[in-house]
């Protein structure tokens, strides 16, 4: 059955970036661009990759949709469900745990009202996600939001500063291949 929903399309800037990336691999190995293109898709379409977006990725790479599904479900960075405007990825592995990641998680749940692994906070701003080692153990505890690392979040002040900065972001920061950041995430509100 034909879907009546509007099919997602990459922006012109994203299309150009995807073509630049595809040239990095042998011509018959376009599938190699899978992960970089999924990252672009996630940035373009509100922080997650819906089945329709994954179909678009398959289309762009000239491969079958199943080849995208099996990859997007393997790697933890790709969100397969809608998310809030900011996804807070809290590192929970040993070295962060030694420096207070469990307390940090509890604190973030308390302040934002969202639960780890659950839906976004009621205001649609924050999704909380626990992740494994972010390779910044000497600066623990750590939260990653998109391409930004927030480190040494072991004081209420540091946590508040991070949340205030995120609350003040109207659009996500622009990526190098974009003119401006995109506001697609707001479209969920």
């Amino acid at each position, binding site marked *: 059955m034909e879907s009546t929903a509007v099919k997602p399309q990459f922006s012109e800037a994203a299309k150009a970036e995807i073509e630049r990336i595809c040239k*990095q691999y042998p011509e018959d190995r376009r599938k190699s661009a899978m*992960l970089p293109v999924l990252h672009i898709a996630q940035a373009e379409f509100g922080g997650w990759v819906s089945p329709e977006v994954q179909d678009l990725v398959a289309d762009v790479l000239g491969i079958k949709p199943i080849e995208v599904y099996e990859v997007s479900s393997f790697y933890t960075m790709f969100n397969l469900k809608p998310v809030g405007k900011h996804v807070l990825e809290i590192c929970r592995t040993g070295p962060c*745990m030694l420096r207070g990641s469990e307390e940090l998680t509890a604190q973030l749940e308390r302040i934002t009202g969202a639960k780890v692994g659950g839906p976004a906070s009621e205001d649609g701003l924050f999704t909380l996600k626990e992740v494994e080692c972010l390779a*910044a153990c000497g600066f623990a505890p750590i939260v990653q939001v998109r391409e930004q690392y927030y480190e040494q979040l072991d004081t209420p002040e540091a946590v508040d500063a991070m949340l205030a900065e995120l609350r003040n972001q109207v659009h996500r920061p622009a990526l190098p291949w974009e003119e401006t950041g995109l506001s697609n995430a707001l479209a969920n509100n």
Partner: protein
Amino acid sequence: MGRKLLTEHINVEGIEKLDVYRKHGGYRSVEKALKTMTPDEVVEEVKKSGLRGRGGAGFPTGLKWSFLAKPEGVPRYLVCNADESEPGTFKDRELMSKLPHLLIEGMITGSYALGANTSYIYIRGELLYVLRILEKAIAEAYAAGFLGKNILGSGYDLDLYVHPGGGAYICGEETALLESLEGKRGNPRNKPPFPAVQGLYARPTVVNNVESIAAVPVIVNEGGDEYAKIGVGKSTGTKLFSACGHLNKPGIYEIELGLPVEEFIYSDEYCGGIWKGRDLKAVVAGGSSVPILPKELILKTAAGEDRLMTYESLSDGGFVTGTMLGSGGFIAMDETTNIVRNTWSFSRFYHHESCGQCSPCREGTGWLEKVLHRLVHGHGQMHDIDLLVSVAKQIEGNTICPLGEAAAWPVAAAVRHFRDEFEWHVTHPQEATKPGAIFPGKLVTA
């Protein structure tokens, strides 16, 4: 104060830019190699240096290079493993974000030695911001004629690209990394064939850690013999240690191999001792997968000698009383640390990161996590402790890749050295599961 071969200029203002990097001696190895040396001569210097893979396995880099198959007319690849994900390890992130040109220089000189005309840096997806830094630096290197066609008029061509992962520890395993680079799930491949024969796109491929490749410029500039003079025995050169956990000064330290562990932990030049004036309880010296050692055994070997930061000294005593240097991810735990809880955290990590291909790992890591969860939450029984050891043993050696061992060793070692504390969780569940509970038994101290 030891020599800093990699990080001497890491804090120089603007060192991430090509002109500043060149002012501090950057790209000399490219000029020297491409203009005055044959590729085989470069390989020979790396062999002589005794450099051992800095990602964790410690396999001699020059030897690995010499295994590369070179069939006529078939492209070959150098792939840099920048998928730094071993808990406790954060040295490559620092190196790449602050000294991007050092890695690029190493990639050029290394690719020349191996005869690769296309090379990739596979960086973990979480470090997309570092990918941006590397891409900027690569663009500068192209503009300056260090990349592209006919580099420095030598006739040698090289294209260098950065490729992001998607969040999967397993992609640090070299064949999983290659699968991932081909756009697939990161399932490790059966070996043989080894990547040296059939790697990326089934072509001959060398995969090296960031820090190994970053050591190539100094080896080419100063000569393998000079490099080998630093260090002790078969542990040559300098190594980056990333220190974390309960230390006064966690961070990245480049040391000459051979430094006593005690000096590394307590000297103000390095970690500055244990935080909050507390006593040290245990150390995981080489990333989460190596065996944990109690204070007495990390400072001294079983024979009573000073434990040194070398491949040999850290593994002295085998797994009974020793550990491994691994990736240099140095995790210190103070006297208040709950070892059982910490072991559970690591097991949860390995269970989460198992690719699921081999049943001993897929099921075994789940068992380890579940049994440890039980113990940590006060529902464990005495026989659970032996069950942990038994499951660990059945994973070990029965999987395609070393993630099985990486999951099994930390659990087996924790039970080996801290059995009392595991038993306390069974005999005193209410006490042991209180937040902040501290094991009251004999602290293992020197």
